[in-house]
């Protein structure tokens, strides 16, 4: 079982970034396939409706692979969330979206990222604007192989009409 990590790092930075746009960060792509069990964030001002997830794609077109609804997050210290199971594959990037007029810690140096005014979570492929020299305080870790369990008898019990 290897540990996977993804995202720039949830640290106290020198600048800030307001929502409600969605951001995908280029720094530290995922280094394995599996499941992200924990996520970390650092906000300047307390936020609500935080979603965070994994993205795959090329150039400025990215698709959300999986995401977690985190909810409200308080500001001023690193907030850690465990018990999650967000699918991730090698080279995926980490992205997040949160409420308007609330700010995440941000650096004006770093690998840059992508910006969209849409909600990309569960929305398929979206074209993003590219933004230089930023890093934000999001980070996730997990393990490979995936830790979540799907009992086979439940899958047989329910038929999904192709929704799996």
């Amino acid at each position: 079982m290897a540990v996977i990590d993804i995202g720039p790092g949830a640290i106290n930075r020198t600048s800030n970034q307001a929502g409600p746009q969605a951001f995908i960060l280029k720094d530290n792509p995922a280094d394995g396939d599996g499941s992200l069990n924990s996520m970390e964030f650092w906000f300047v001002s307390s936020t609500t409706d935080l979603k965070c997830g994994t993205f795959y794609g090329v150039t400025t077109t990215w698709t959300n692979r999986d995401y977690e609804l985190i909810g409200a997050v308080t500001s001023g210290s690193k907030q850690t969330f465990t018990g999650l199971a967000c699918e991730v594959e090698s080279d995926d990037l980490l992205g997040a979206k949160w409420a308007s007029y609330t700010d995440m810690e941000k650096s004006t140096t770093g690998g840059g990222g992508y910006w969209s005014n849409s909600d990309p979570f569960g929305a398929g492929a979206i074209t993003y604007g590219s933004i230089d020299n930023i890093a934000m305080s999001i980070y996730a870790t997990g393990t490979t192989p995936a830790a979540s369990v799907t009992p086979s008898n439940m899958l047989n019990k329910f038929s999904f009409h192709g929704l799996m």
Partner: protein
Amino acid sequence: MKAEIETTGCSVRRGAVQLRISLYLDPSDPRYDEHHVQVPVIPEGENGPEWTGGEPPDENDKGACEKWHKEYRAYIAEQTEWYDSLPKVWQNNPFHNHFVQVSPDITDGEIKKIVSDTLAEFGGEWEKGNDLAQYWNHKPKKKVYAPFKVVKGVEDIVLDGLQKGKTPQEISYLLTNKAIEINQPIADHLTRCAIKGLDIAARKANFEASKWL
């Protein structure tokens, strides 16, 4: 230390009721200062400088990109200055947050035990000085309740619909309108999960736990 259910993180995930448990330190607990912090007070009705420049332009348009980034950097500097100018207050943040996935048939007694066990487990690791994300990643995982996985967004639509007072029939209609085909047993199960999650959230005070000692 104390633990409580954080309602904003309760949802339906992978066919289960997902509950978020937030854990707080008392002043007598170790490393209390790490999450007892000063935060800016944002005056009511004020949001600071507002970004009006829209999304970044096409990166092949170098001139437009350069102009956009210059304006964006100026906005960020202005906003940082605004934050720095605000008065600050002390705030006690959670030292940890943990999600659990449970059956919609879970009893109140079982929820209380989960909240209490979560506080004991992560509180104990905190007292030992351990990094809680690393602890969780390296811990052998028990089987979690996760009966199935549906297309992304379906569970959010069900939960959101119930929160807005829609009936299960109206939610089924919403899913049909979005061209999401879902069979009735699954729709019923997700609705039961969402109702259970909302019920637990509404009675969150019943499930609080204090230090295990």
